[in-house]
């Protein structure tokens, strides 16, 4: 058998590559030189500040020389950034819940694991109960930890997970309602979507924190965290509904008619024929909504909950650690970035895998 041979065009000399990609014409050359100059003059100083001159080890601000970044601050407060004000002797409960979640999710990534549906059902129904017991305690001899003590990255992830899991089904229902032939249902769904999308999340959170207590009968009160979760979930559900509606509209009419002529009822038609196709089409939009939700969790610091951004802001006001705002915010930004970027890359992979080439 012959060895595969690339056509000559693929064998580009490095100099040729540089000529085409950096110095194609005079404009490109000027831009390359200009941007190159800026990079050369700033990048080394930045790398030096972040890595080389930075101080990594120690326990107080005296360990920082001041020449580079002071990562000692992050190290000293690391537990707080992750767990908030959770009692340190109970950290194992949060860790256990996390390890359990990861262990349960690993099989989902294996192609030849067949009981995925059962596992997903357990993840959606069984796991939240276990996690709630572990986090809040108060039963089985676990010490009770109030939600006010939850904080940091842990709280960010709890709100984001609950929001993501809850906003998808609500969004699907509202999107179906908006496309429904029943005028009252459609009208209700349109109003919900337009109101939620027309106002900033902050006003919804303000409403949840200031007005919700007034709406409840006397004696009934929601926990602050619960109110924030309801606010964020409903807000993103409206955006989710619009994304999914886009997918529903993109499905050809013939599919609806074919399902009808097979004698499927509404839920069979939607569940087996329309939604699987529609959701697949709008995966990027759905994941973008998830990412938006993840970023929006930072807003709950405005109503006084200390998730990652909130706890960072509080830590930076500590008189012992004044003046490390850049380090603090860079660290928080990096954590958010890893999660959001990871989600967007994962969605690209799923999209590529599910792409059956019909489009």
């Amino acid at each position: 058998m012959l060895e595969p041979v690339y056509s000559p065009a693929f064998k580009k000399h490095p100099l040729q590559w540089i000529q085409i990609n950096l110095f194609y014409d005079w404009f490109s050359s000027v831009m390359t030189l200009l941007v190159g100059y800026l990079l050369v003059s700033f990048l080394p100083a930045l790398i030096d500040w972040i890595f080389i001159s930075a101080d990594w080890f120690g326990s107080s601000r005296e360990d920082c020389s001041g020449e580079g970044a002071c990562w000692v601050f992050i190290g000293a407060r690391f537990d707080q950034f992750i767990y908030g004000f959770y009692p340190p002797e109970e950290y194992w409960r949060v860790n256990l819940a996390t390890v359990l979640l990861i262990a349960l999710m690993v099989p989902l990534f294996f192609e030849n694991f067949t009981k995925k549906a059962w596992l997903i059902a357990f993840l959606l129904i069984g796991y939240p109960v276990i996690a709630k017991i572990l986090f809040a305690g108060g039963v089985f001899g676990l010490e009770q930890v109030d939600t006010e003590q939850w904080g940091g990255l842990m709280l960010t992830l709890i709100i984001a997970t609950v929001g993501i899991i809850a906003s998808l089904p609500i969004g699907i229902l509202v999107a179906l309602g908006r496309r429904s032939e029943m005028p009252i249902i459609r009208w209700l769904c349109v109003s919900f979507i337009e109101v939620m999308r027309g106002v900033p999340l902050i006003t919804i959170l303000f409403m949840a924190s200031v007005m919700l207590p007034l709406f409840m009968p006397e004696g009934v009160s929601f926990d602050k965290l619960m109110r924030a979760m309801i606010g964020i979930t409903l807000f993103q559900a409206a955006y989710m509904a619009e994304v999914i509606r886009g997918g529903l509209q993109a499905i050809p009419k013939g599919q609806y008619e074919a399902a009808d002529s097979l004698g499927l009822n509404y839920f069979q038609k939607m569940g087996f024929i329309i939604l699987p196709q529609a959701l697949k089409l709008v995966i990027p939009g759905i994941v973008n909504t998830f990412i938006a939700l993840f970023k929006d969790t930072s807003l709950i610091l405005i109503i006084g909950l200390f998730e990652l951004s909130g706890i960072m802001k509080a830590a930076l006001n500590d008189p012992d650690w004044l003046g490390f705002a850049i380090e603090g915010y860079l660290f928080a930004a990096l954590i958010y970035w890893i999660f959001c970027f990871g989600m967007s890359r994962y969605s690209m992979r799923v999209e590529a895998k599910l792409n059956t080439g019909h489009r």
Partner: protein
Amino acid sequence: MKNPQRNPINTYWNDPVFRGRVFQAVMLIAVIAFFASIVSNTLHNLEVRGISSGFGFLNEEAGFGILQSLIEYNETHTYGRTFVVGILNTLLVSALGIVLATIVGFLIGIGRLSNNWLISRLAAVYIETFRNIPLLLQIFFWYFAVLGVLPHPRQSISWGESVFLNVRGLFIPDPQFGEGVGFVVASFFIAIVAIWFIKRWADKRMNDTGQTFPVFYTSLALLIGLPVLAFFVSGTTLVWVMPELKGFNFKGGITIIPELTALLFALTIYTAAFIAEIVRAGIQAVPKGQLEASRALGLKNGQMLRLVVIPQAMRVIIPPLTSQYLNLTKNSSLATAIGYPDLVSIFAGTTLNQSGQAIEIILMVMAVYLTISLVISLFMNIYNKRMALVER
């Protein structure tokens, strides 16, 4: 049919129209009952807490100062006035943000498609970095980490003794025109009218004879030239009021508070990352055949961009661009986290805390944002209809 003599209840239940009506009625009753219980609970709770409802509080004296106001405002003005001041500040930061984010976003989006590897990589890094970090964190970064460490007023950074930058803000000279400024303003509008006529004439001439006319450069010259000419001819005086250090801070001139700068920076950089992606997608949506066709017609690069690519790309770009503008306007409410006096910060913050009228205030604030949203999407829909492809 298995059972021709069906039970009447089953007949009704199998009729989708009947079923639909029952379902809708149940939903409607449930929603009405839900809202009715909310209203009755609220009225009861308000009574128990002794809070009076109504909009009478809008006429009461506010008694607090506001950092930045576009209209005259002091402590003796009413709560109603704080509402207007808040709206104007929200509109100011949104309008500035929209203009800046559009410019930066289009530049980055075009850069993303550049055939220069360095530029397109940098644009990609910009987009992937800034859209994956929460806006609130970016606002904090600019406000606390960058602007918060600027020197105190006495050690201000200054350029030519007229522009000063310190922790209290950016201070720039304030231009004061003398009499005759009306001529300058009028000449500006005359220039706009003239450009409209020139454009019409140039289009007609191009359609008739095929000759082109440099409308863009003529317009630019008119827009700048006419007002400058009017300024010298009318003999208007121009006095710059310089900011001066008095006591602990600068007086005179125009002050741009750091809250506004930080918010504007963060909103611009964050939204520009999204706009850049929209612009890239829009330009890529123009089929390659269109470019080849315009090359075959002998259009130059600039003409191809202006006459073929941009009009077609704009069709794809405008709808998502509108929703980014709306997002920016709504996101400007994050101002409350750093104390820029926008609608949410002043009215749903200070005014609410002082007056205690939570329900009225939150509803008013929501109504304002809803109105802005609906008005912008209305205008954009009209524009979109005009731009849309006219098909047979």
